[in-house]
């Protein structure tokens, strides 16, 4: 079924569920922090499940499921499959749900390494943790089909409300293909790399934050993941030229969106 057909199949007053997997809850705050919009949204849709805000009905049939967080436990695989089965349209919000997020840095340890981590942090009753933990933290799309993704760490209220409004009109939300540089130019922000020699991932990072870091005079650290047409070769060469070591460059990309195919140069 095409995205368009799927969206036409949604109710005029859609039922919405907001689910949390492994995350910091920061993307859900895009709803809660803008309480005025949350109250307005509640007049347009029926929010049937949103634990942090109040309503609870985890496995209700819904038109729209919004998912925050990555999958790190056996239990969550099962829960995610149930959520997908009950939802007509599934939207992932934020770095954790889209790339596995910062906790996906565990994917660079082997089983022995992870065991050391588990024993290091949970010295007593480690078996309880080991039994539930997966060896990886993976995005939602690694387990179930995803209809739309909204990047960011965290996403903004504007992004999510924009997307929900589009869905209410039966159209697929707009995909942002630009890099952070676009926002810098529009806002007239002086380039931090050119003018101050700050390493900045803006040229290869997806836009959506309105160039928040360059506006503060610092380089972008890639919290929105790779932009669509990221030129990773040129970016890496530039960072080398600026004197960054190989490990420093590796850590720039192996950070909040380490599993992003774009950042991996795939």
């Amino acid at each position: 079924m095409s995205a368009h057909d799927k969206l036409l199949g949604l109710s005029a007053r859609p039922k919405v569920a907001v689910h949390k997997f492994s995350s910091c809850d920061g993307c859900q705050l895009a709803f809660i922090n803008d309480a005025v919009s949350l109250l307005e949204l509640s007049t347009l849709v029926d929010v049937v499940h949103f634990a942090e805000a109040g309503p609870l009905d985890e496995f209700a049939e819904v038109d729209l499921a919004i998912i925050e967080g990555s999958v790190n436990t056996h239990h969550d695989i099962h829960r995610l499959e149930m959520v997908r089965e009950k939802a007509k349209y599934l939207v992932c919000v934020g770095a954790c749900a889209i790339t596995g997020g910062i906790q996906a840095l565990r994917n660079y340890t082997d089983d022995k390494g992870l065991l050391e981590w588990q024993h290091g942090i949970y010295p007593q009753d480690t078996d309880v943790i080991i039994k539930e933990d997966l060896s990886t933290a993976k995005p939602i799309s690694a387990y179930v089909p995803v209809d739309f993704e909204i990047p960011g760490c965290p996403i903004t209220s504007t992004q999510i409300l924009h997307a929900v409004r589009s869905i209410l009109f039966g159209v697929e939300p707009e995909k942002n293909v630009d890099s952070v540089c676009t926002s810098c130019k529009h806002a007239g922000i002086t380039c931090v790399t050119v003018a101050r020699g700050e390493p900045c991932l803006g040229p290869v990072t997806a836009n959506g934050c309105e160039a928040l870091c360059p506006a503060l005079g610092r380089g972008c650290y890639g919290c929105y993941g790779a932009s669509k047409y990221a030129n990773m070769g040129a970016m890496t060469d530039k960072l080398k030229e600026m004197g960054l070591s190989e490990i420093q460059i590796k850590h720039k990309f192996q950070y909040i969106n380490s599993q992003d195919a774009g950042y991996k140069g795939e």
Partner: protein
Amino acid sequence: MSLAKTTKIEVPILARVEGEGALDLEIENGKIKKCELRIYEPPRYFEKFLEGREPNAVIDAVARICGICPLAYQTAAAGAMEKVFGIETSQWVKDARLLMMLGQWIQSHYLHVHLLAAPDFLGYRSGIEMAKDFPNEVVRGVRLQHLGNDLMKLFGGRSVHPNGVKLGGFWHSPKESAVKAFVPRLKAALEDAKGVIEFVSTLKFPDTTIPFIQVSLRHPTEYPVIASGVITSRGEEFDVNDWEQHFREFHAPQSTALHSTTVEGDPLLLGPLPRINLNFDRLPKHIQDLANATGVKFPSNNMFHSVIARAVEGYWALERALQLCEAYTYTDTPSAPEKVAAGAAWFGVEAPRGIQIDEFEFDAAGLAKHIRISAPTSQNLPCMEADLRIALEKFGLERPDAEIQLHAEMVIRNYDPCISCSAHFLTLNVTRK
């Protein structure tokens, strides 16, 4: 009650907290036999994957532990680094860090009071539901919450995972005009905040007494937000570097969040109520008067008075923020020069829900070597369990499950738990024998 009768009921509870967990209650012959708060928020291993990372990458990363109080993690991490590296931050940096933390308190406290706690006391299932009957109160709360968020944005660009803090200070200095624009808003907010204190003092508080050792940071001259002293209700005062001589952290099998107790094994209580109880003398006289006018006498050992403590702290935070904004001047050196050195240090800040304390060790290149991060909610978990036993037995275990559930939720919400931090969705499992 028939001995043969065992009822097991699964009720989804603890909405309006942040994180995932469940409460197991076993009631036998009218007594609570088992009371365990199970936290199954999956572990994310920040302390491990940040080993080997550079200082500013650590500061940006620790925000991601919790979307609700990212700044507490950033401020504590930066503070620990500066202590180890021997970086002396300027008064401008100290003031700006305090101002941003106050923004976090304002945002979190007014969100909690209006959208999370008040619905319990007034008999609503959510803040949205309550807004229909109490539109002015809810809108006033939201207005104050937004003001807190905007203060954080001033320095950090955004309120969730702000980008302003760096080693030695801040990445930028906001323009004076941008900061002064807060002065009229903060003045108006003080009126709102007075209204909130009056509003919460009309709530009906269940009777309960908590026997826990209370712990808070202690500042030499003012109410504690960022401070190096620790004070307890046992009359101890010590430096935060000696934390481990007094408290210990351990893993309980029912939880992915680590628990804390005193070295003797007694639960310790952190948060707004201990803070106001132990630092009432650090509040200006007119704010003490506002607190006394609520009819609650501090120190109070009724955990339900936490909501009053939050409202009073909110007022203090707004007034302190106003002073800082009025005195603000622009600087072209918002950060001390960076340098690194090997070593280790403890650093604590008062997050809205209690002390957030870190131990960081760095190598000679300034890379993180060993990290321990203790969130206030995880440290409070043994108190929450013990408090539930006391509060529910007092409430009456013969009451229907639905009433027990609501009361249990109220008890837990007093702590404003933030469960992603400590390791949401809570399920109440009641077994009656």
